[in-house]
């Protein structure tokens, strides 16, 4: 039922809001437009655009979908089609400040990767796909991070951490929290 409600909300937000302020600012739009010269079609700039938007805004909201569609001469449905397929983009909630992707594929699983995922679930009190209430950590499982030589591995935002143990995870979470405090946000 809640899913149904969510979809209904989507429909409303996909309709146009003439007075609303745009989600994508001028700088972001120019960055997306800079990709257009690389490809003979505008649609080819879609994945780079989705990456840019998620990187800046930590999510690709339905309003952002509509604006990207406008920018690339697509329908919102076409943007939604691609976005939904990749499953990597967050639509209804913002990605946490730190996204922890824990590998659960064979090489990591053989060396305890799934235990680490469970450990993180308990420690952060969330399930894969969810974000902590303070917006600091998003937990995701990953299929093969390509770090089998240092299994089990976790990708934290853009940094790969290999040969992980529960103790190392404790240290990692502490240092990430400290990093956030140091940044003063």
């Amino acid at each position, binding site marked *: 039922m809640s899913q149904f409600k969510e979809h209904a909300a989507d429909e409303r937000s996909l309709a146009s809001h003439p007075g609303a302020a745009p989600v994508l600012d001028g700088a972001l739009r120019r960055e997306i437009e800079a990709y257009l010269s690389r490809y003979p079609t505008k649609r080819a700039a879609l994945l780079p655009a989705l*990456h840019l938007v998620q990187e800046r805004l930590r999510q690709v909201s339905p309003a952002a979908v509509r604006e990207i569609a406008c920018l690339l001469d697509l329908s919102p449905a076409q943007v939604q089609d691609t976005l939904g397929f990749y499953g990597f983009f967050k639509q209804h909630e913002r990605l946490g400040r730190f996204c922890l992707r824990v590998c659960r*594929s*064979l*090489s990591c699983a053989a060396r305890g990767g799934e235990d680490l995922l469970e450990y993180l679930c308990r420690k952060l009190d969330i399930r894969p796909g969810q974000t902590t209430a303070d917006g600091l950590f998003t937990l995701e499982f990953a299929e*093969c991070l*390509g770090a*089998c030589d240092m299994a089990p591995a976790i*990708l934290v935002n853009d940094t790969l951490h290999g040969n992980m143990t529960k103790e190392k995870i404790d240290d990692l979470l502490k240092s990430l929290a400290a990093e956030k405090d140091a940044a003063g946000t």
Partner: protein
Amino acid sequence: MPYEPVLLANISKKESYTLRVYEAGGGYRGLRRVLKELSPRDVVEMITASGLRGRGGAAFPTGVKWSFLPKDHPGPIYFCVNADESEPGTFVNRIQMEFDPHQVLEGAIISCYATRASKAFIYIRYEYPLCYRRMQAAVNECYAAGYLGKNILGSNFSLDVYLYRGAGVYICGEETGLIESIEGRRAWPRIKPPFPAVEGLFRKPTIVNNVETLACVKQIVDRGVAWFRSLGVPPEPNNPRDPGSFGPKLFGLSGHVNRPGCYEAPLGITVRRLVEHYGGGVWQGRKAKAAVVGGLSTGVISEAEFDTPLDFSAPQRVGCLGLGTGCVVVLDETFPMIDFLYNSCRFFAHESCGQCTPCREGTRWALRILERIKAGRGRLCDLDLLMEIGLTIGITPGTTICGLADGAAWPIQTTIRKFRGELEEYIKKTNPHGYRETKPLPAMTGD
């Protein structure tokens, strides 16, 4: 005489990823020579003569693939570097791009010259952020040094290279899936023919090659065809369709070994030697039980089959799909094969793109059957049911567009064939009262 690494020769150097270090080691001399002395056709002939086969998993002869491009096409012709390495157990492209991006790039520039491509896209999976940064830095250095851009090194060959970032989807590594992804669509593989060499990216002729293949191209240009053919395994004399397995190969070794890592050896090294000599044996003093030979898709071999040579044809003789990516995952004697099977089926159920019904449904049902077995409600006939799925999904039985389903099927088939006893034991132990509850369904006959 011990084998001296060639593809990995650079990576132990300090700042191996910079142009300065790469050039000091003789980098881009091959490109200079090619642009000055060879025509594109000469390069294609050289690569064809070397017998180089694609390192990404399908092992298709690279020169032959290039020769499928239409002659005298007005252009543009596109070139894609497949750096969407997502096969479980596989990580050698990551090592190459992180530590020797210029070797990959030089191979790509030479290949673009050979195929007359004017634009190249390097499709890097999202999970490799360091590769992305290192490759982008390498591309920037190349533009500054005149190895990329207009009239490269004073020739009339011009090339632009762009990086393209994936978004966490396995199927983007399938070459037509990769093309669809660059076009901004869901990465649904296309029906072939037409092959990408005829009609690919933006409906123009397109070549898609793997990262390691391009590094081999660069080495063949530098060292010659005779060097390349002196390594590896010659074709079987009794099999006219076997083009042989020539050249060096990067083998990724992971799982329950003492020294996991990326190792270079000529094709044809046995699994046992790779594990013992390079990997330092099985960890914690245990024995091996099984190994994946070339990425999860290729299936498993038992310890008794560890003397299988890792070349393009030998793994098929022990029931595997092929050499795949050449990345071996070793499982020790304590690792339950039911967990292996569950892990494999979960991966493919998650990664099936949903385009073809047999794959979309088959991978999910296989997962649900395994979930039931693991929940203690397994039946012996479930193994037959899994086998039936394993035998009916994929290109080989002719029910899907791409090979993902074959990749899902082979771990199922090989595990049940080689470890049926252990799996039955597990079902009997976890479901002592119900394991014989139902009879197997009548097998589908196909008529």
